[in-house]
């Protein structure tokens, strides 16, 4: 039903009073109001304190009062200590302004029990616009309110549980991150210490061949160290740019005294591989580059070792291609004292499922490697080159 301010004659409710004896006769609207299960009442704002002048049986059943106890009284007896003061103020405002209002109020029955009252109040005016009555209907919505409270409490409890769980997970993540940093720190320090031990031992050795062997070990360890440093220095520990590594490696090795006249020719395109392939790839590159620097060039008439080393990286779809070339004396199949290095390269190539070719570049040698790159998200470039 849609109750809006309606225009009735001034004695409309007296007409209904006349029909008191016989329900449903004469004024069917009045009969309906008396008999409906919806609690309804009418107040008269022209009398002092806006008293109840009509209440149906449903109202009496809802509130537990006798008709005689409520007739002539203002409706505020339904309020109690827990009724919201702001809600009451809003009802009062609407009534004094003769506006309609719909509001949920906490009300009290005669026996003191509470119920939630979905109250609707609407002013009734005559054709001149004079305010004659207020019509009010009440609906017990305690069940709905209870389930609303229940839902709200459930929601609070659920949110609390989510907050607690989130905090637990954050703490666990923080602990894991700390542990990871600690382990990373130790790995780096240990790699550095292994290198230190080899280096210091190397310096005390007189025998040239032993010293060279220790030097090769040092270079291999340093290649591993550089992979680790690069991986954990970048924000992305899951991928590794072979091009950046190769550039650093060649630059690092060329700074050694006596190799000053060897020039590097870089032709490097970003060549990102997953971290799992980083170490074997780095070791292969290290072997090929150090092999060139040690064996590809002969001393010139001036006692200087001169020549060019070229290194290129490509990353065509699903593959990594590396080329290491020199214009030296040629190193087909390697020399005997490098056989361990060669075995290392062949074994690592098998691990990587790489094809590896030694070609006579006349002058010098060209080594080509082509290998499949494990499927992973491909980042174009991890960090900028120098």
């Amino acid at each position: 039903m849609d109750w809006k301010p309606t225009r009735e004659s001034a004695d409309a409710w007296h007409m209904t009073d006349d029909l008191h004896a016989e329900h449903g006769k004469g004024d069917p609207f009045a009969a309906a109001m008396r008999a409906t299960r919806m609690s309804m009442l009418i107040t008269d704002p022209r009398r002092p304190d806006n008293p109840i002048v009509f209440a149906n049986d449903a109202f009496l059943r809802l509130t537990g009062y006798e008709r005689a106890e409520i007739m002539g009284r203002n409706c505020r007896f339904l309020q109690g200590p827990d009724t919201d003061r702001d809600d009451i103020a809003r009802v009062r405002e609407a009534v004094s302004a003769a506006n309609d209002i719909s509001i949920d109020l906490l009300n009290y029955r005669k026996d003191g029990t509470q119920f939630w009252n979905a109250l609707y109040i609407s002013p009734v005016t005559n054709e001149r616009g004079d305010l004659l009555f207020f019509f009010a209907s009440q609906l017990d919505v305690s069940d709905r309110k209870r389930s609303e409270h229940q839902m709200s409490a459930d929601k609070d409890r659920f949110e609390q549980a989510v907050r607690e769980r989130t905090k637990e997970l954050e703490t666990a993540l923080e602990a894991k991150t700390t542990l990871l940093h600690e382990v990373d720190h130790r790995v780096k320090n240990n790699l550095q210490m292994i290198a230190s031990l080899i280096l210091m031992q190397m310096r005390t050795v007189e025998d040239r061949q032993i010293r060279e062997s220790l030097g090769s070990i040092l270079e291999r360890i340093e290649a591993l160290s550089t992979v680790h440093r690069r991986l954990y220095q970048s924000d992305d520990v899951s991928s590794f740019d072979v091009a950046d590594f190769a550039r650093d490696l060649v630059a690092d090795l060329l700074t050694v005294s006596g190799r000053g006249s060897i020039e590097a020719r870089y032709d490097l395109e970003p060549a990102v591989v997953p971290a799992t392939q980083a170490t074997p790839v780095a070791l292969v590159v290290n072997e090929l580059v150090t092999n060139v620097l040690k064996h590809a060039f002969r001393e010139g008439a001036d006692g200087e070792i001169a020549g060019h080393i070229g290194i290129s990286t490509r990353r065509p779809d699903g593959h990594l291609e590396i080329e290491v070339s020199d214009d030296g004396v040629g190193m087909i199949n390697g020399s005997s004292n490098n056989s361990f290095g060669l075995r290392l390269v062949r074994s690592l190539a098998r691990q990587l499922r790489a094809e590896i070719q030694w070609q006579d570049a006349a002058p010098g040698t060209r080594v080509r490697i082509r290998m499949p790159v494990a499927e992973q998200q491909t980042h174009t470039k991890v960090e900028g080159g120098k």
Partner: protein
Amino acid sequence: MNEPLNVLIVEDEALLAMELEGLVEEAGHKVVGWATSSDEACTMVDQADADLAFVDIHLNDGPTGVRVADYIRERHGSMVVFMTANPKRIPEHFAGAIGVMAKPYTMNGLLTALRYLYEGVRRPPPTTTLPAGFTLSPTYSRQWARV
């Protein structure tokens, strides 16, 4: 070597300090002291006149390397280079240090860094290439940037 550098090593790992000492001397410079804690380091810089200090961030008494760097710079104006496995722990302003050598470094990387730093201390700005694994602080990378 002309005007070799007086180098102070602040490092709690004996092996790394030994290696560093060996490399510094091999490069023709002089090691004036080795400290393993921040207190020891501060006492040592007060006594020895160091041109350059290699300072590990994590020392015997905790992550006190940055404090050591602050002290060295304020009291003596010496140049500091951090040596650490965890460069992310260095504050953004680098406590006035020249830069950081990330561990693990390579032997050649360190020798190149020494050559670079020698030029930086004796006749800045340095002209040799910045070695791999060495990162300049924002301040020094502006001052020493090569065009």
